[in-house]
């Protein structure tokens, strides 16, 4: 035997799903009745108090029908149908929502990263048009519930002093300037809007071209003359004595410019308490004498980094003149070890250990050392896209782990990163190039301007509306509008509520 149950709103539903035969017919019929009732409900605008009719067991159609009829829709304004009480089981108590209030698990951090300034203006003894500040955070990266994000990370665009064997994608960007580091640097600033440059002096390797320290200093001079943004150098001759020579010649040449100087050959794997080589100590003395910022370099070795920093601090170099380089490698090649190193550095810095407080510089451009970034291999898809996706992935790992400065190579990856940083730091866009990062760059003229560049200029002057661009999604339009006028922007759940249906 069988009964029919009228399911009340919010009540739990019973199981009964005959899939064939008589049961199936009945089910179909009920479904039809359900629809009918809904219809009545919508036409009359009344609440039937029943969501749907559910069948339990199997029952001859006529009997079913009579039961159903007894539960016919009441007249407008009538109380809940009495028939329901006869057929339905006693309603279960409504399920209660647990009450919960999350107290943000805020921790207080006694320490903070040091603030480091890159470059020096004329007033400060250099010739740079501006300086940049990094570091200074007293919370782990992007823990907004604990505090703010003081300075947006800076991207240094890398220039090589001799062709490192650029891949196809990079050749498209730098092919015309690869023989001339000064022209390369100028292109980075003028065309790509670089805010900092780092010059890689790889030609000083005695096993390679073996350029002299003087030649290296001359190249640096040309770069400093070609651009007015903060500049750094990377010395990696692979030979300690040569590195010191190069560092000294460059430091002298750029006296007062506050270069950031990385030397990768000076420091072999080191640990707390290890006596450092004379060359390292000389490097510190040189940097200090000529007013530059040093970069402690130890791949994936937090304790080694702290030891180098400590040695520098003992030489009275303040933490505001030191940076920490944990030796970034491309994803898949030990990135997680660098991430772990950075975790340690961040934790210790925030506890208040001075030796870990110099801000972190990481080089996602190292992703290009791995074949995935350039190898032509059909099963891996377009190598052009891979070159960008691998460098971006590496940069993402560095940023999420708390890098304060990135060294990058490929303009497409750099643009992606800057656009992301615009959003994370809610940076007000004030120049055409930054606005362009958020426009489609199709030059389709549909907005009434001849190029996206013209549109960008008009937007900055307040003469155009972002909505006029026909190549953007609503989210894209919202993004650009907010970045042009960030005051009062607040996250809004509506931004994503439609993901399920809209993508």
């Amino acid at each position, binding site marked *: 035997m069988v009964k029919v149950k009228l399911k009340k709103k919010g009540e*739990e539903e019973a199981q009964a799903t005959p899939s064939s035969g008589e049961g199936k017919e009945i089910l179909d019929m009920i479904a039809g009745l359900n629809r009918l009732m809904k219809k009545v409900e919508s036409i009359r605008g009344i609440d039937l108090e029943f969501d749907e009719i559910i069948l339990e067991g199997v029952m001859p159609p006529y009997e079913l029908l009579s039961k159903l009829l007894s539960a016919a829709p009441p007249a407008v304004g009538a109380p809940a149908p009495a028939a329901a009480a006869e057929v339905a089981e006693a309603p279960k108590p409504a399920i209660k929502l647990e009450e919960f209030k999350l107290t943000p698990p805020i921790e207080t951090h006694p320490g903070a990263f040091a603030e480091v300034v890159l470059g020096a203006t004329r007033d400060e003894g250099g010739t740079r048009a501006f300086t940049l500040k990094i570091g200074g955070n007293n919370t782990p990266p992007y823990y907004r519930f604990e505090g703010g994000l003081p300075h947006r990370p800076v991207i240094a665009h890398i220039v090589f002093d001799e062709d490192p064997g650029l891949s196809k994608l990079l050749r498209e960007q730098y092919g015309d300037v690869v023989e001339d580091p000064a022209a390369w640097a100028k292109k980075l600033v003028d065309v790509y809007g670089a805010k900092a440059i780092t010059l890689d002096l790889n030609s000083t390797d005695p096993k390679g071209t073996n350029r002299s320290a003087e030649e290296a200093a001359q190249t640096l001079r040309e770069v400093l003359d070609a651009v007015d943004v903060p500049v750094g150098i990377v010395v990696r001759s692979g030979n300690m004595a040569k590195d010191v020579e190069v560092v000294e010649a460059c430091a002298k040449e750029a006296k007062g410019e506050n270069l950031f100087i990385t030397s990768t050959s000076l420091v072999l794997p080191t640990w707390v308490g290890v006596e450092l080589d004379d060359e390292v100590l000389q490097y510190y003395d040189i940097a200090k004498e000529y007013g530059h910022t040093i970069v402690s370099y130890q791949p994936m070795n937090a304790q080694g980094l702290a030891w180098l920093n400590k040695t520098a601090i003992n030489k009275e170099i303040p933490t505001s003149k030191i940076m920490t380089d944990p030796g970034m490698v491309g994803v898949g090649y030990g990135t997680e070890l660098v*991430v772990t190193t950075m975790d340690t550095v961040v934790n210790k810095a925030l506890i208040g250990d001075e030796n870990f407080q110099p801000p972190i510089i990481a080089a996602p451009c190292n992703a290009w050392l791995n*074949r995935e970034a350039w190898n032509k291999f059909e099963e891996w898809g377009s190598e052009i*896209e891979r070159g960008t996706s691998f460098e971006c992935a590496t940069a993402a790992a560095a940023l999420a782990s708390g890098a304060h400065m990135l060294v990058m190579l490929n303009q497409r990856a750099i643009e*992606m990163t800057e656009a992301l940083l615009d959003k994370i730091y809610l940076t007000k866009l004030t120049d055409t190039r930054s606005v362009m990062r958020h426009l489609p760059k199709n030059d389709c003229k549909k907005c009434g301007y001849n190029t996206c560049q013209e549109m960008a200029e008009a937007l900055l002057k307040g003469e155009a509306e972002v909505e006029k661009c026909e190549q953007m999604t609503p989210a894209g339009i919202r993004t650009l509008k907010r970045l042009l006028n960030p005051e009062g922007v607040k*996250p809004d759940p509506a931004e994503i509520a439609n*993901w399920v249906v809209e993508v």
Partner: protein
Amino acid sequence: MAEKVKSPAEVMKLLPQEDCGECGCDSCFEFALKLVERTTTVDKCPKLKKSALKKIKNMLAPPMAEISFGSGDKMVTTGGEEVMHREELAFFGKTIIAYDVWDTMSEERLVERVNDIASMSFVRFKVQYNVDAIAIRSVSGDPTKFKNTVKKVADTTDLPIILCSLDPKVLKAGAKVLKGKKPLLYAATKDNWEKVLEIAKEYETAVAIFSPLDLDMLGSIAATFAREGINDLILDPGTFCEPDSITETLSNISLLRRACVKAGVKEVSYPVMTVPAVASMSFKNKKMAAHYENYLANLFVTKGVNLMILHFPEIWEFMPVVYLREGIFKHPKLESAIDPDLYAFNDPDEMSPLMVTSNYTLTYGIVSGDLDRYRVKCWMLVIDTNALSVDTAVGSGDFCADNIVEHMEEFDVESKIKHRILIIPRVAAEILPELREALPDWKVVLGPKDSSEIATFLTEEWEKLLAEEGAA
């Protein structure tokens, strides 16, 4: 405050104290240590009494729930985290990567896309990486349409399925089709949770709880579901990718993790998911959107997010995310070296080329990957270099003539191989003179610099080398 990492001494008290070695450890204490660092499992000790086993299991249970969905051997599991940062122990709840399809696609396109997603893969270090799950979105809002789509997808692939709709009627239609296959319902919200709870109970599903920017509600719903017996829960605090809101998303991920592993807040002690697919709402240009999605995905993986739904099944985007994920979720204690041995690739015979390399996991992984990919028939002698790469090991003296000779003797190379030609990596050029001296009967030659060039090198050189040897 929850314990950061558990105490081996406490576990030790519950072990049989027999030091019999059956668990693979030399002593019970070593076993206790390994249990705490989660490099072994408690069932490895056959002598444990049931009660002690249960106690140890309770004691070691991580603060974050471990959850699963899907069925059969494609079932996926995640969660079980116990630390904020990898440096404290390890991350365990490897990010499940899902791609989406939707119910307004034509059947033909649907099947094609499902197949594209299911077959997107690459091999690295002898492991094949595939997509873990498939998400089906109800764009039409029509339960029947959704039901049919789910049916089609389930007929096409056995990947675990995530049913995406905020309308319980739609979710129910999908869940019905997947009865017994334990889909993940996406999602329960403040508006629909009651109905979703009913469906989850009836069809025994896992549930994602979606409460953008409202973490109190997230915890409320999770606690309610847990009370009602639904424990396979995953939290979505909302994936925002627009100015400022993206910062909130990054912050909330860390906040939830800390509330779970440090503050022990039960209500939010579940794995966390994000939807990088929202990136596609920001750009009309598909490539731009895919790159943005890739960026978000890698930020989230670094932060230890446990499940992500992506939209662009492009191998060039899938690869870096998986590369990073495999690293971030690798147990640091299990970063072992490769066992030294004479490895055979692609059925070599006694006249196949012989090469030598280091036992650094990464070096071996890359070299072996290339040999497999280009189907190079050869022998590879892996020597113990203290897990250093070849160039570093040359510098440290671990990749030296004596060491190579020792390994050749240990693995009986001279009787397994008839020719007397040994190819060494080009980066080890400086050991060539001493190696030639140590192996007077052998012709030692420099191979290519990068292992991806081995195949070409051998095609061009091997016959020549053999002929020269024959002539001599």
